[in-house]
């Protein structure tokens, strides 16, 4: 997963350097990668979203 997410970011960076006219594609790749990361991350913490600290 992390490999795929980072690969999408890397492709987006290449696009903004070499093919800047592909702005929407580059932004979409970043957002897809971010959504994958955050859905996985929060899902991973779902049994204790606020951690086990005294709050």
């Amino acid at each position, binding site marked *: 997963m*992390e490999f795929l997410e980072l690969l999408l970011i*890397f492709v987006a*960076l290449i696009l903004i350097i070499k093919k800047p*006219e592909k702005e929407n594609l*580059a932004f979409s790749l970043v957002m897809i990668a971010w959504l994958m990361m955050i859905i996985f991350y929060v899902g991973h913490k779902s049994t204790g979203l606020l951690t*086990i*600290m005294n709050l």
Partner: protein
Amino acid sequence: MNEINKAKKFYTLMCLAGFLIILLPVGTANIIFGYFLADSPCVLCWGQREAMIFIGVMALFIVRYGMKGKYLAALLIMTAAGLYQSFAHFGNHAMEDLDQGFGLPVFGIHTYFWAEVVFWAVVLLLGFIFIFAPKFSAFDKELNGEKFRKYTGFSLAAVVISAIIVASNVFQAFVGTGIFPYVGQGDPVRFTLNPKYIIWSTDSWHGLWQNISFLGKRDVKAPDYAFAPASDKLGIKFDNDVNNSPFAKIDENLKILDEQTINFNKAINTLDFINDEFVASSKWDVYFLDNNFTTKDSFELDPYFSASIDPIIGIIPYMNDKFILMGSNKSFLRFKKNPNANDTLQYADFVKGANHFEGQGKDLGRGRLSTVRSKFNHVASMTTDDKYFYLATVPNNKDAKTFVISKYSLKDLVLSGEFTPKADLKEGRTLGDLYITSMTDKDGKIYALSKNHNVIAVIDPVKEEVIKTLSFPNTITNARSIFFKDGKINILSYQDGANKLFALN
């Protein structure tokens, strides 16, 4: 300054910020920690590292395509998410002892807390950068109708180096976590290129988005009190049948010798006989009663002053002329009677009774007790043998098995020991099947009263063992307190809307 020039300087600062967040925390973690120190990020560390990359990349989007609302929105949302991510990670390690942690510390701080620092720094730096922002119309003018901005030497170098660092992370992620569906690991082994030791795993997919809870282990419902039954919330079905108790055998069956209804207008949760008077409590009210249960003196605790005290679960004598009252959250107040108390000084502790009770002064005041084995359990009972005092846990909606007695020295009020008593139990049962609402000490033995299954466990705190079991009749349906008076066991039960006191033998 010319607004166009201000816009250019703004973009330079934005480029520098985006570049630095990728170069410093991400680059250091990837190259120095990863390749030189062989550190492998865990699944949560990967998420935070990626969050930093996302923030840096969004800044580079702004540099390339101009200041657009969607990029600023993404930057702020990603930073907010990053703050949550690092909190969610270090929160699970925050209760550990000195120098315990996960992975490499830098200047004594572990990487998951450095992430918190980095995300706050993003907020701070973004604020500073916007101090130098031009009028928003200048951003359009600076773009001059183009779809994207041309790179300067600096900005091109920044984005290229950033891309190289991201590429290096792609490589490290490939080696350390693998390709889809493999995913980062909770406890990754050190980084290596030797295939023999490389682990690709799907374990972190397990449990994803299951059992959603904000408080997690701490989502424990309040105990069952006389004034607030909690059977449904706790998921515990109380019964009065001793045959359902977890004990393999019952040594003695107590009989009721006397029964009286106490004329009292509140549900008494704790009752004891201390220094020839009854001491009762109901939630945050404490009453001193004569032998006819007429109130001689009383106070109402302010539960939220200083160390907050959940409803009172026990009161014991302390240092001859004082008392300790305990909340179910293991926070306490040491107090004493004083008919001439200064109500201005005592106002803090008492909503009522500040002019004849003291909670402020020498050897008085509030505090919190710690446990090791029962951090996520309430207590519902307390007793003392004059050297130590003891607390017993009650089961709850998250944990139906744990039963721990915690022992505290009366000298320093610090944990001196913890144990789960040995007991002769039926197969598959635990002492968590009990619901100990009260304990009392007699001749160095603890009599622990369980309202569930109408049973009393006599515990030897030295041997840490249940040495005897007693049953009491099922006509007592909601046993709340146990104490000895005139050599007999007394049990208070709040049932049918009345406080009933039973003497048994």
